[in-house]
């Protein structure tokens, strides 16, 4: 009885306070610029309890931008491994999905999927801040349901 109650409370709290950590795996900085406004007055993600954290150990959701490159691959995997479970990954923009315009370059691995299990893809080049916030919201829902680690797509 009380275990169930604690379980429900922790589910709600996971949905209500998703803290994010942002890593640039080799993006052109376009998507990173779009993440900034999410935390600024116009969109203010703190209304949903979203906080941008400085340390991956404090975060629940990893925001990853850009295609995986030879140089960043190990670092990105390391950062993902440092996040305590349960954790979710939101891939922002077209690059983490396909490699986009960087696909085929000898220094670029392409999609981030083989290295890090992505939960939500937010399409766009770059996506709008609304779409990024929707991606974070859906990732938080997945965290609450305990369904992270399986591929999902957002409709926008």
């Amino acid at each position, binding site marked *: 009885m009380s275990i169930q109650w604690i379980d429900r*409370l*922790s589910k*709600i*709290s*996971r949905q*209500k*306070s998703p*803290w994010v950590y942002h890593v640039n795996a080799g993006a052109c900085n376009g998507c990173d610029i779009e993440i900034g406004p999410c935390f*600024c*007055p116009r969109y*203010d993600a*703190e*209304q949903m*309890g979203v906080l941008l*954290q*400085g*340390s991956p*150990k*404090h975060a*629940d959701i990893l925001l990853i931008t850009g295609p995986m490159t030879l140089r960043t691959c190990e670092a990105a995997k390391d950062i993902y491994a*440092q996040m*305590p*479970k*349960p954790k979710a990954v939101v891939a922002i923009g077209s690059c983490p999905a396909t490699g986009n315009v960087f696909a085929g370059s000898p220094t670029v691995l392409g999609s981030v999927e083989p290295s890090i299990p992505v939960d939500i893809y937010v399409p766009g080049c770059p996506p709008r801040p609304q779409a990024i916030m929707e991606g974070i919201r859906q990732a938080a829902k997945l965290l609450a349901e305990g369904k992270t680690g399986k591929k999902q797509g957002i409709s926008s």
Partner: protein
Amino acid sequence: MSDWWRIFLAVLVWPGLLGGALLGWLFLWITRKIMARLQGRKGPPFYQPFFDFVKLMSKETIVPGGTNRIIFYGLPLVALISVTFALSLIPIPGNPLRSFNGDLILLIYLLEMPALCDILAGFATRSLYAQVGATREAILSLGYNLPFLTALIALAVHAKSSSLREIVAATPSPAIVFVALALLLSVPARLKSNPFSIANAESEIVAGIHTEYNSKPLAIFELVHGLELTALVGLFAVLFLPFAHSLVAALVIYILCALGLIFLTTGLAAATARLKIQNAFSFFWRWGAAAAVLAIVVALIW
């Protein structure tokens, strides 16, 4: 009521762990809300600090390599226990604990423990950023403790007693203005809010002292921060505001004092950028020391 029962109530219910945590979460929310409104944002809903705490408690804890598990889990617990006992010593209305001679000194020691645990936690987790943060916190605590401790000593000198209840009951003297000033100067540094957010400098040194802390121990550190805020507000309300005999009036006074203090520190945090450690230190040893010395001199003369 027996003495043990009183201590139990004071430490665990009011004004200790339970009441302190609820008030602490409320005050943390007010801080975040005021900050958001000053920046033109909407800000988080009122339950946010509570859900942050529950979420952190429900996560997996990673103990960093090369760190002693007992120290990693023990430091936040020691900080929590000492700040809870500190809260239970403050004679806010409804506190069942009787004041005793020397509880001011015990309170000073207990209020110092969270900062000490933070410093040790920073060094113990072996992260470079946490060690930088811990060094800064150690230096800064030498700075802000000068006005803080001297002001409290001035109060004790004035009341000719080291019992909090007698200090509160003593006739007010002009020294109280300087005491309030010295305490106010040290509050933003104690709360690590903006011009003095040198130790936990977010994004500058990753997450400061708590870089390697995660999940449950981090949740307890956040709770300790809330309790510290409650204790400081309680100390202010008790020392500088008139003592009300009815519980409702006392609570209203307490909440108003909290709002005033939080608005001052948050407004200051929103309006200023981070100082360098040497500037913050010289600020406390110049203006903080001036206010504190004046407080002692006035307390001795009157």
